[in-house]
C-alpha cells in the first residue's frame, strides 16, 4: 500500500462527497425561493439513500467480479461490503479496498443528485427517494460495471471514460431527459421567467463543484503521481476555457454576459473534460473547453424547441457536455498520456459507448418513472406546486428575514 496514494484518495473521496452539497447550492440558488429548500432536500437525501444502497448492493453489482465473465453485472461477492476490508487491495491498487469503495460511493451519490435539476418544483419527495434508490441499483451500478469494471463497454468495446463522462454525466443527463418528459413541465413553464432566486448561492455552488472536481478527476488516477497531476491540469484548463467561452458567446449573441453563464460554462467544461482528463494534455483540454462552452450554450434552447421542462438544464450541460467530451476524446486521446491513441476507430468506440449509455439510461429511467407514476404518483398537486414545495412538502420557508 502507498500512503501517499491513500492520502490523496482519502482527500479525493471527501472532495467528491462535498460536491453534492455544492450541487445542492448550485441548483438551489437557481430555483425560485419557494422551492429552494425542496431542491436542497433532493440532493441531501441522495447522500442519505445512495450510501445505503451502495454498501448493501450497489458496490458489488458494479465492482464485484463479473457474473460468468460476461461483463454485464458484478456478482454478489461484496454484498453488504463482504470481503471489502481495509487491508487487502483486491484491485491491485495502492489503496485499501474500503477506500476505493468509498471513493466510488461518492460518484454513485452525486450521479442521481444531478438528475434533480430536471425535476425542480414539482416532484413528490417520496417518489424522488424511491426513484434514486432504485436507479442507483439498476441504472448506475450496471453502467459503472460496463465501463469501469472490465464490463462490455470498457472491456469488450474498448471505450474509455476516465472519471465518468458516460457513467456519471451522460447517464444522469439521459435520466434527466426522461424525468422532464414523464413529469411534464412546471406550471408557467415557457411563460413565466422563474428567475434564479439567489445567484450568489449558485456561484458558491460552482466554486465548490470546481474545487471538488479535482478529487473527482485527479482522484480517478487512484494514485498521487504524474497521471493525477495531468488530470488536475486538464480539469482546470477545461473549466476555465469553457467558462470564458460561454460568456463570450453569450455576450456576442444575447448582448450581455451573465453570472449564471459563467457558472454554467465552468460546469460544462468540467463535465466535458471528465471522460478525458487522464487521456489528453492541456492543449487538448483547451479544445474540449471551447467546444463544451459553445455547444452546451447552444443546447440550452433544445428544451424550448422540444418543450420539455429540463428546469435547470441537466440535459444541455450534463448530457450534451458529456457527449462532447466523450466524442472529442475519441479524436484527441494521446497515447503518451493515457495509453490510448485517438483516431477514427477510437471515435467509433466512443460513439457506440455514448449510444449505449444514452439508450440504457433513458429507457430504464423512463420505465422506472412510469411505474412510480402509476403507483404512488410523481407530482405534487397543482396547489402544492403553486404554494411552493418548501411550504407544501416541508412546512418551511427558506428565508425568514422579518422575525
Amino acid at each position, binding site marked *: 500500500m502507498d500512503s501517499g496514494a491513500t492520502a490523496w484518495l482519502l482527500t479525493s473521496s471527501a472532495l467528491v462527497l462535498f460536491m453534492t452539497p455544492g450541487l445542492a447550492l448550485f441548483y438551489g440558488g437557481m430555483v425560485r425561493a419557494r422551492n429552494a429548500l425542496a431542491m436542497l432536500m433532493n440532493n441531501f437525501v441522495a447522500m442519505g439513500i445512495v450510501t445505503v444502497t451502495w454498501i448493501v448492493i450497489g458496490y458489488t453489482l458494479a465492482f464485484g467480479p463479473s457474473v460468468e465473465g460476461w461483463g454485464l453485472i458484478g456478482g454478489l461477492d461484496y454484498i453488504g461490503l463482504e470481503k471489502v476490508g481495509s487491508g487487502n487491495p483486491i484491485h491491485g491498487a495502492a489503496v485499501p479496498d474500503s477506500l476505493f469503495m468509498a471513493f466510488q460511493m461518492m460518484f454513485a451519490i452525486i450521479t442521481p443528485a444531478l438528475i434533480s435539476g430536471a425535476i425542480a418544483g414539482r416532484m413528490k419527495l417520496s417518489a424522488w427517494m424511491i426513484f434514486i434508490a432504485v436507479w442507483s441499483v439498476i441504472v448506475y451500478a450496471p453502467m459503472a460495471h460496463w465501463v469501469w469494471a472490465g464490463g462490455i463497454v470498457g472491456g469488450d468495446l474498448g471505450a474509455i471514460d476516465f472519471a465518468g463522462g458516460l457513467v456519471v454525466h451522460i447517464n444522469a443527463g439521459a435520466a434527466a431527459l426522461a424525468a422532464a418528459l414523464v413529469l411534464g413541465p412546471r406550471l408557467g413553464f415557457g*411563460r413565466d*421567467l422563474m*428567475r434564479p432566486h439567489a445567484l450568489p448561492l449558485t456561484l458558491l455552488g460552482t466554486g465548490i463543484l470546481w474545487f471538488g472536481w479535482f478529487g473527482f478527476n485527479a482522484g480517478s488516477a487512484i494514485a498521487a503521481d504524474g497521471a493525477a497531476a495531468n488530470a488536475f491540469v486538464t480539469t482546470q484548463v477545461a473549466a476555465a476555457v469553457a467558462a470564458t467561452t460561454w460568456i463570450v458567446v453569450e455576450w456576442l449573441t444575447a*448582448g450581455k454576459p451573465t453570472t449564471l453563464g459563467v457558472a454554467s460554462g465552468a460546469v460544462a467544461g468540467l463535465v466535458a473534460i471528465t471522460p478525458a482528463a487522464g487521456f489528453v494534455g492541456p492543449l487538448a483540454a483547451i479544445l474540449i473547453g471551447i467546444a463544451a462552452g459553445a455547444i452546451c450554450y447552444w443546447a*440550452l*434552447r433544445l428544451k424550448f424547441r422540444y418543450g420539455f421542462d429540463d428546469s435547470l*438544464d441537466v440535459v*444541455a450541460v450534463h448530457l450534451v457536455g458529456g457527449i462532447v467530451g466523450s466524442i472529442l476524446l475519441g479524436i484527441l486521446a494521446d497515447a503518451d498520456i493515457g495509453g490510448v491513441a485517438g483516431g477514427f476507430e477510437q471515435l467509433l468506440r466512443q460513439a457506440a459507448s455514448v449510444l449505449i449509455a444514452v439508450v440504457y439510461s433513458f429507457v430504464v429511467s423512463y420505465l422506472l418513472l412510469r411505474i412510480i407514476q402509476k403507483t404512488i404518483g410523481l407530482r405534487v398537486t397543482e396547489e402544492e406546486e403553486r404554494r411552493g414545495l418548501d411550504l407544501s412538502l416541508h412546512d418551511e420557508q427558506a428565508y425568514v428575514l422579518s422575525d
Partner: protein
Amino acid sequence: MKMIIAYINPYKLEEVRDALKGAGVTGLSIATIQGFGRQGGHREIYRGAEYDVEFVPKVRIEVLVDETLAPTVISTVEQTARTGSVGDGKIAVISVEDVIRIRTGERGEDAL
C-alpha cells in the same frame, strides 16, 4: 394632512431623498417593491430563452406631510425621479385624517 406615495426607480432613491430633505421633509418611509406597468412587458433573453419580464424592482416612498408642503413634495419627487423613459413611476396623494408621533403623543401637524 396628506400621505404622498411615490413608486420610483431604486437608483433614484438617494437623489430623491436628498432633494426631499432639502425641501424640508423631516421624515419618510421606504419599501422595496416589484412594479408592474408599461415598462413591464419588455422581452429579456435568459439562459437561451426569451421571456416577458412582468415585474421590475421599484422603491415605494411614503411621506406624511401637511397641506402646505404637499405640492413641494410632489414637484420635488417629479423633478428628481424623472429620467423621461418609461418606468419613471407614479405619485399618488391620499388624504390623512390624523397623525400621531408615538414618542410624544403629539397629534396632527405637530406630529410631523
